């Protein structure tokens, strides 16, 4: 039989020669399958992740950001619901519930942003090139930013509290720092949430007891130095608590 394997025109019309040519091909089927599997199994990155990749210039950090427990849709929806109820309650009672709720919500969300008590792969993440502190920073900033945006939107949608402007923003920072510091110190997100909620409740009730106004915690300018000092002190504490050495001592004690 004549060999036509080099004749492309003939190969296109002759099944026999085409089969013989294929037999001679050195095809690495494993490599082909890996390529097919890689395409079939991959789920394309979502819009938020793609934007985060561009902003952070790190696909790893972007993925770490979108896996933040307190940034999942259910958590965000719950926050929106609480603030919406707060806005409705503000309209019907005149008490500024949105500014009073916003710091507590942010403190709880930040406590659930990252750490050994929250992130299942925390031990593993400490052996990876992208540092856990960088992940912590990115997540905390994102959670805080989102909560601030939600609170701002709720404030703007509630005519009764527009005058309060951003009076809640600084206490929100303080309570967020409190939640983060306690969560990292205690290695427990629940402890961080409890500290944030208790701390903010004490501030609100303390302010109300001394001024007979429930909103004093977000309206009294005299409280600002306390908030600022608290934010700085608690942020430093969180930084210390999240250092590798400190984490390890806690693991073994």
């Amino acid at each position, binding site marked *: 039989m004549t060999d036509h394997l080099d004749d492309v025109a003939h190969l296109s019309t002759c099944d026999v020669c085409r089969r013989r040519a294929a037999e001679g091909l050195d095809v690495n089927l494993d490599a082909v399958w890996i390529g097919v599997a890689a395409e079939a199994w991959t789920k394309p990155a979502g819009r938020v992740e793609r934007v985060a990749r561009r902003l952070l210039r790190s696909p790893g950090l972007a993925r770490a950001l979108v896996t933040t427990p307190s940034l999942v849709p259910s958590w965000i929806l719950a926050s929106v619901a609480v603030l919406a109820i707060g806005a409705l309650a503000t309209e019907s009672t005149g008490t500024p519930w949105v500014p009073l709720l916003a710091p507590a919500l942010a403190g709880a969300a930040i406590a659930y942003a990252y750490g050994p008590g929250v992130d299942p792969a925390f031990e593993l993440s400490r*052996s990876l090139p992208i540092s856990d502190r960088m992940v912590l920073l990115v997540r905390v900033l994102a959670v805080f930013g989102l909560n601030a945006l939600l609170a701002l939107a709720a404030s703007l949608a509630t005519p009764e509290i527009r005058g309060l402007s951003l009076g809640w923003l600084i206490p929100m920072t303080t309570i967020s720092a409190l939640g983060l510091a306690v969560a990292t110190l205690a290695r427990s997100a629940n402890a961080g949430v409890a500290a944030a909620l208790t701390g903010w409740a004490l501030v609100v009730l303390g302010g109300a007891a001394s001024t007979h106004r429930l909103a004093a915690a977000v309206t009294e300018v005299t409280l600002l130095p306390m908030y600022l000092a608290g934010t700085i002190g608690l942020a430093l504490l969180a930084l210390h608590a999240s250092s590798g050495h400190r984490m390890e001592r806690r693991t073994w004690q």
Partner: protein
Amino acid sequence: MAVTVQIERLCQRFGRTTVIEDLDLEIGMGVFGLLGPNGAGKTTLLRTLATVIAPAGGRLRLLGLDPGDPEQRRELRRRLGYLPQAMGYYPNFTVFEFVEYIALLKEMPAREIRRAVARAIERVGLGDRAKAKLKTLSGGQLRRVGIAQAIVNDPELLLLDEPTAGLDPEQRVEFRALLREIGGRGTVIVSTHLVEDVGAACTEVGLLHRGRLVFRGTPEELAALGEGTGAGDTPLERGYSAVLAGARAGARA
């Protein structure tokens, strides 16, 4: 033999407890088995080599890099794989998503990640479960996911803490073959309680007792030490128990 892991007078303490004491060890390419009773310091040694914890004393040089230097540590982390004893995971991630997440945090080149992840999943025999959520997997399958994330970057230094826990006999045989394959191109340090794993897969073995290396040699040399003396069902078990008995007697003397 090129030395890839260099440990000089390594100490690890947690509180008042000394876990590793003045450990000197040099390891090259191949599969190095770490044996020892509970509390001997195997996990602490692996965590130290994985750069999860800093040494309390002594000096480390891994793949020619100093983990004490932040830049070198980052480079080292890109080139190592680590399976912790208790690996946390995200229950709602699929197998592919989890391994991909770790690959991203290992800062692998984006264009290589999909194929690398698919290949790692196939290598541990989880191709048919690649799109399954982690919460639906058995303990043995989760362990294989852990191995997949550890090998996804083709690490030059692979650290595995009890990798065969939960694997059935057939999977363990396949896993040993994988270990031998990786050990042919890099350094694998595997901590295990299963002496037969050492015999089947390791080129060298070290036995830790109370943070000290009390034996180092080939599996055959360990087995030879148990002839006519040690307790156990296999030559390796007899060698293991004979060395331990000697170490305990030495500690009492």
